[in-house]
């Protein structure tokens, strides 16, 4: 009975910490929650890749709605810009998902990783 209770407490701690970190990043940086929650679901909660990705989208959607309420009150939401970007993004996302099947991500992923680092350095040293 004691072991079972310990296991349950352990799981609650996992849910809460994973959710907190993911939600926090989503709110603070407007992104990145998914990058945290997917490996979390796979490694700590032992879900398979497909379930983890699908479930992560629902989780991040929840966090995003909450974050957007705050960003809205903070009056930083540019709806017109978002609409314009989303128009391109929805088409691009559809194309990207189809490309995913044809190309193995390996080299492209590393190239974009490098781009991200370059962009990161630019942003850190921006005035």
């Amino acid at each position, binding site marked *: 009975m004691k072991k079972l209770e310990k296991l349950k407490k352990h799981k609650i701690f996992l849910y809460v910490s994973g959710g907190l970190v993911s939600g926090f990043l*989503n709110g603070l940086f407007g992104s990145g929650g998914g990058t945290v929650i997917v490996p979390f679901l796979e490694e700590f909660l032992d879900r398979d890749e497909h379930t983890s990705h699908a479930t992560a989208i629902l989780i991040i959607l929840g966090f995003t709605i909450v974050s957007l309420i705050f960003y809205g009150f903070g009056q930083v939401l540019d709806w017109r810009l978002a609409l314009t970007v989303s128009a391109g993004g929805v*088409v691009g996302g559809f194309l990207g998902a189809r490309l995913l099947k044809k190309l193995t991500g390996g080299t492209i992923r590393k190239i974009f990783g490098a781009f991200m680092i370059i962009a990161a350095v630019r942003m850190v040293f921006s005035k």
Partner: protein
Amino acid sequence: MNILLPIISGFAAGIISGMGIGGGTILIPALSIFLSIDQHTAQGVNLLYFIPTAVVALFVHIKNKAIDYKIAIPIILSGIAGAIGGSALALVIHAKLLKKLFGGFLFFMGIYEICKKDKQKEKK
């Protein structure tokens, strides 16, 4: 107001995230660097842009019964506090500082993408 550049940025970022790279962090630097959009606005756009793409994806996932609601609900409920904390913090941080902090975060995300193992290779 030029709309071509935002559409192209969204399109390019969409392709990359559609391929599973970057986890949504590509659009914000693109808007910031190429369109000189301030950090809070760029982050807000990324959040808004996620909604339609997530809804569409979820339709497919719900149909395929790929979502584990048993873990999704507790994680969302406990994570909301984090989302509230993170958002509130973002709003009180000055845009220039938030941009630098985001850059630091992006740096680690870039390293993560470079170090990510190709799962198909792992299975072999």
